[in-house]
């Protein structure tokens, strides 16, 4: 379920956690730098909350459009297996080969 999204204070721990989630290795100096940068960005965006009262719905799209659908018909852009695999660093018997990450199914 949704967590409350009140803007959290950006600490070095938060940056470290984010870097782990994003699988980006950061040095201590980078963490220090990013903590300040991210903190600045978050506090700038937090200014929105000064004008956005609770009765204003959150916006996820700037253009008021909805219900853009596609009919349930197979398109003409279906790839062949060769095309699909053409960018794969490694393949075997029509499948993509990746290094094993066991037991981490989502």
């Amino acid at each position, binding site marked *: 379920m949704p967590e409350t999204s009140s803007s959290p204070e950006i600490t070095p721990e938060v940056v470290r*956690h984010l870097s782990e989630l994003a699988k980006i290795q950061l040095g201590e100096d980078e963490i220090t730098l990013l903590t300040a940068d991210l903190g600045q960005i978050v506090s700038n965006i937090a200014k929105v909350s000064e004008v956005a009262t609770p009765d204003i719905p959150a916006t996820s799209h700037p253009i008021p459009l909805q219900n853009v659908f*596609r009919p349930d018909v197979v398109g003409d852009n279906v790839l062949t297996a060769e095309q699909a695999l053409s960018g794969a660093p490694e393949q075997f018997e029509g499948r993509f080969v990746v290094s094993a990450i066991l037991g981490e199914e989502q």
Partner: protein
Amino acid sequence: MAKAKLMDFDKALELYEPVLGFEVHVELNTETKMFSAAPNNFGAAPNTNLTPVCLGLPGSLPVVNEQAVRYSISLGLALGCSIAESSRFARKNYFYPDMAKNYQISQYDEPIAYEGEVEIELASGRVIHVPIERAHMEEDAGKLTHMGGSTGRIQGAEYSMVDYNRAGVPLVEIVTKPIVGTNEDAPEVGRQYVSIIRDMVIDLGISDAKMERGNLRCDANISLRPRGQEKLGTRTETKNVNSLRSVERAVRYEIQRQAYILSNGGSITQETRHWHEDTGETSAGRPKSDADDYRYFPEPDLLPVQPTAQLIEELRAQLPEAPTLRYRRLKGEWGFTDLEFQDIQNSGLLTEVSATVAAGASPQAARKWWTGEIARVANVQGVEATSLVSAENVAALAALVDAGTLTDKLARQVLEGVIAGEGTPQQVVDARGLAVVSDDGALIIAIDEALAAQPDVLEKIRDGKVQAAGAVIGAVMKAMRGQADAARVRELVLERAQA
């Protein structure tokens, strides 16, 4: 892996109250995927059902499948849910190669359907209302095959092979609220709930619902709390519970396993557990960790879904009868006793029996085949009865028995052939030459041969010892390799004696 210690089921229930929760994933049987015009069909060659969207190639953009939205609304309505006026998609971010784009498009805080209730009726007649939290739209992930160790192609290395055909297949995930008060019925509630969802989506025509193919998948959340305690205990989430029987077994197993740990002063780890069909046990998977922070955010590539009231009412008007109501009606129409009907419900085969009756079989014949021979074979093979044979073929088999083409015994052999993939019952009858010999000429020749071997029989019959015919009937049936109607043989033998 050491075998977990279990507490006796009845004793576990004396001490603790089980609280259940289910997440059921339903694959929709649309022609195309959720967000791309790639084909959605099972069994295609690996990586041939893909468009650039399925692979998350740069520049590709998802577009929502209208039919999938209609199906999701129908399912939401069938679950007794409210349909959201506005619903939107969200990205669930994670690193795992089952999705090429490193996120799954799902719904988070604005699901298409919310707050429903499903009525189920147990074999005992007890009625339970399962509270539904939400049903949301999402896309399925690709399929990984793990290869590894010394036998792998890459020597000594462990690796996985990915087929993205399933990536992007439309899914609806149905999430219950905690189900309390089920007590000793907990395992049956689990089974019956999933069975009802299966029947529901089949009736709606929105999913093939074949559990053995993964069209319908269930994760079972189970926790225990000491009797009298309000606060919910720590739960485990058992994944991969992919048959009705497994749902029942997994719930029972987790209750017994958790009760043993708790009663010995231990505590339950909040974790994913994997169900093993072969051993009937669960094993610890990944504990909940920091990596479970999926950083959901609104999917910027997709617009909100805002179904009109008109569409919702149109779909509501098309809803089939609710499964539990249908059960009650069918029981009356078919004229089954409580026990006979329970037999079908317990086996989870009502949909099949119903479809078999619809295909022309008598209710009794449909019941007899499904809960008898087919269930027996399924049990021996350790698979779902539904995966063995179609309702049409069972009805065809019953029709052959009714027409006198097959005896029950021959029909079981024909069924075996149908299950083995030899074709329809008629094709198996033709190919194996299994039909009852209904040609009196062939029977009379066999009778004459048998009488010649036992010359005293006719005289005995004429003396009034009709039971003497048994020896001749036996010999004829043997000569016909069982493919004769014993009653007809008897008639012919007696006619011979009168001659």
